[in-house]
């Protein structure tokens, strides 16, 4: 908690939401000389940022976000340098697999689209794919191959960022739920409640980094932008013998598969469970568990014998055009928003950097994603 003198003078920036994007933004702002606080209603990186599959792939990243993901990929690989603590980021190649003719077309399309944005993805034969990944199903028809791929252990993210933020002099305020924000010419007052009672922070600038809750946060400021909530199911096995050595996905986008150094295999792919923004992830949908597992055990037959240790859910944010929301909050001075990058963990650290660069008045390394475009844009299928 900040001391009295700090809170009366106020922060240069208060970041609301302590996931990867919020923490990265806060860290870069602090390194830029600002006095910063991060507030989260729970512990740092315990929502999407701590429970996602940790895939650092270009195959499943939106084509237009490939340049961002590539830069973020390097940041994850170098995490120990700039965070002081790593997330076990591991560089292995990534294969996206096609088992049907329709999927073969998708592999070609997706590779081409990503190549246009700079991803080194080539389409390879099943024989070549089997050389790279011997454990893949013999029925493989085609694969997309990318050398720049890998994974991290998402659950380590909170500890790493906490370390870095504290070291950079950022005030980390966990288990404090922000309830409202008063914004005016003099700046913002962020009101929150914690176990110790209610309190407030004064901030010259605020950054909304609340993931799926960005919609709620924008509403505090009177801005209506819908954010879709995906309830992703994840499955992890117990430690098993080495059965794969790349990151695998399927061309239809519905499988992510990786085996960590500790032998556990993480199965994801965006299969939906039950839940919502208010109550969080509630439970898995059995038919979607079965579907996800069948796809996994099909892609790597050796997985059939693997025992599942744990199933959980994570909430992922998506905007109406499936592109991130990064920039100025429309109509509210000195208020910013960063999030909804879809595969946001992959690109998170870099998105936080460009957000901070913008706030510090620097030229961002890559263009932001103007939130104003989303005003009035209907959510597809709403």
């Amino acid at each position, binding site marked *: 908690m900040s001391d009295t003198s700090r809170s009366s003078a106020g922060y240069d920036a208060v970041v609301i939401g302590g996931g990867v994007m919020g923490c990265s933004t806060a860290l870069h702002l602090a390194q830029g000389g600002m006095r910063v606080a991060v507030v989260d209603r729970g*512990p740092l990186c*315990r929502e999407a940022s*701590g429970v996602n599959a940790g895939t650092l792939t270009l195959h*499943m990243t*939106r*084509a237009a976000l490939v340049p961002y993901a590539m830069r973020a990929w390097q940041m994850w690989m170098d995490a120990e340098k700039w965070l002081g603590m790593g997330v076990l980021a591991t560089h292995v190649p990534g294969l996206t697999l096609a*088992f*049907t003719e329709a999927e073969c077309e*998708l592999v070609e*399309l*997706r590779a081409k*689209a990503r190549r246009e944005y700079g991803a080194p993805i080539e389409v390879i034969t099943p024989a070549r794919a089997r050389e790279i990944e011997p454990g893949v199903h013999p*029925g493989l028809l085609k694969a997309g191959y990318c050398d720049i791929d890998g994974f991290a252990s998402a*659950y*380590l993210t*909170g*500890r790493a960022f*906490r*370390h870095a933020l504290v070291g950079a002099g950022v005030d980390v305020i*966990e*288990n404090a739920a922000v309830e409202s924000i008063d914004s005016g010419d003099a700046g913002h007052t962020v009101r929150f409640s914690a176990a110790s009672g209610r309190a407030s922070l004064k901030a010259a600038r605020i950054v909304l980094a609340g993931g799926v809750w960005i919609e709620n946060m924008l509403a505090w400021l009177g801005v209506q932008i819908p954010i879709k909530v995906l309830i992703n199911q994840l499955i*992890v*096995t*117990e*430690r098993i013998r080495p059965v794969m050595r790349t990151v695998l996905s399927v061309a*239809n*986008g*519905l499988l992510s598969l990786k085996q960590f150094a*500790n032998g556990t295999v993480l199965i994801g792919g*965006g*299969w*939906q469970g*039950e839940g919502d923004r208010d109550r969080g992830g*509630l*439970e*898995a949908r*059995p*038919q*979607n*568990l*079965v*579907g996800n*597992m*069948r*796809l*996994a*055990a*099909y892609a790597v037959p050796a*997985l*059939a*014998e*693997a*025992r*599942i*240790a*744990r*199933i*959980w859910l994570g909430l992922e944010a998506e905007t109406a055009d*499936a592109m991130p929301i990064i920039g100025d909050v429309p109509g509210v001075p000195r208020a910013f928003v960063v999030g909804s990058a879809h595969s946001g963990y992959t690109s998170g650290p870099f998105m936080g950097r460009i957000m901070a660069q913008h706030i510090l008045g620097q030229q961002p390394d890559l263009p932001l994603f103007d939130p104003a475009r989303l005003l009035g844009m209907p959510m597809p299928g709403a």
Partner: protein
Amino acid sequence: MAEAQTSSVDLVVIGAGPAGARAALRAQACGLDVLLVDENPDAGGQVWRPLPLGFSRAGDASPSPEAVQGDALRAEVRKSGVRCLFGHKVWNVGSGLRIDLIGPDGVVSWQPRAVLVATGTTERVLPFPGWTQPGVIGLAAATILLKSQNMLPGRRTLVAGTGPLLLAVANGILKAGGEVAAVLDLASRRDWLRTLPSLAARPDLLWQGAQWQIALRKAGVPVLYRHGIESVEAVAGGLRIRARQVDGAGAPVASASSRVFEADAVAAGHGLVPGTDVTRLLRARHRYDAARGGWIADADAEGRTSLAGVYVAGDGAGIAGAAAAGAHGEMAAVACAFDLGRLSARDHARERDRLSAQWRKPARFGRAMAGLMALKQGAVAGIPPATVVCRCEDVTRAEIDAAARDGARDVNQLKAWTRCGMGPCQGRTCSDVAGALLAAHVGSREAAGCFTGRAPLRPVSLAEVAGDYTYADIPIPKAAPL
């Protein structure tokens, strides 16, 4: 499941031990359509385990009380015609109470209107250097080995820990022709004497206890009160155990010298922890009650939890002993039958009062024993830093303390930062001790919390859940945008 048929029933009872089996029988008697499930091959739970298939009782000695009670219960279940699914693991319970099971023929699902959770307890073993050695088993584990497998843990066994199982196991070993190197009890004689009033109604147990003491004395077995295991190490020919004196909280007394014992096996156990896997998965409200064994579902006297249609009974609801478990199971069944509209208010009240009176005395004894078995904070504090706490993941006490110092505030954050609880035992072995260690940093067990419940309730393989399929059988939802 997509293809698996889901059958309907009024009530599923999970766990066919003393509480669950009696609950199922009572529920059926109240006119409910019941299904009783258990992963074991027959009813009886841990305390009343049947003999393995193919074994039969022999010898001159009359069968033990547990054998008699267990056999009688199994016979009653068989005779009653209550539908049973033995050899089936419950791997998931949906929020709508759908029960997903894995059995020898694959997956099967049942949709009840209510669930009665009678899953009993697991054993708490406080870690000590060398506790992960082969040849070191739990105390309740030794009971199972002796009573069910009719096997000794070793030629010469050291018995250590807390609670009524200590003397039971030591005597079981002597009776089976083995030697007992020593009995180490964290409790003092006075702690035991304090339980005497609860034994007033059980002169048979008092008598048995006295007989056991005599037998141990006759065999020259040292029985050391206020003593615990300092370490176990593998040496040529077996195990060397260092025993040390402890204080009332279980903390080592620094000034006292250790005693050394030689044995080829160790049976060590420090109480029982209620099994809350199912109720945590369902997100029922839980509370911490050290005297009842630790975290338990917050339930009323009849076993109603904070979730409609979800009941708990037996030691899994808070330790009160096997003798009380049956009455508790019946109470929960009666409450359920009433709540489902199958019992009049008058009948419910009459049965509840009758069963409650039946429950009171054995529960008093059971709770006194639970008090002896409650976690001793001083013993937790005495765990050396390099000692493994999470067996599945080799996480030591030092790593847990380091995570706490780094800011881990609850056991779920601790799990994320250390992997403690991420292994295939799903935290059942380590969660109580991990919670106690973290509580020392964050102020209370309540603040430290308990592991969030997750499916599967037991590890299941992809093959078991996925079944037989072709690529075309995989239900593919809409593909991701480009």
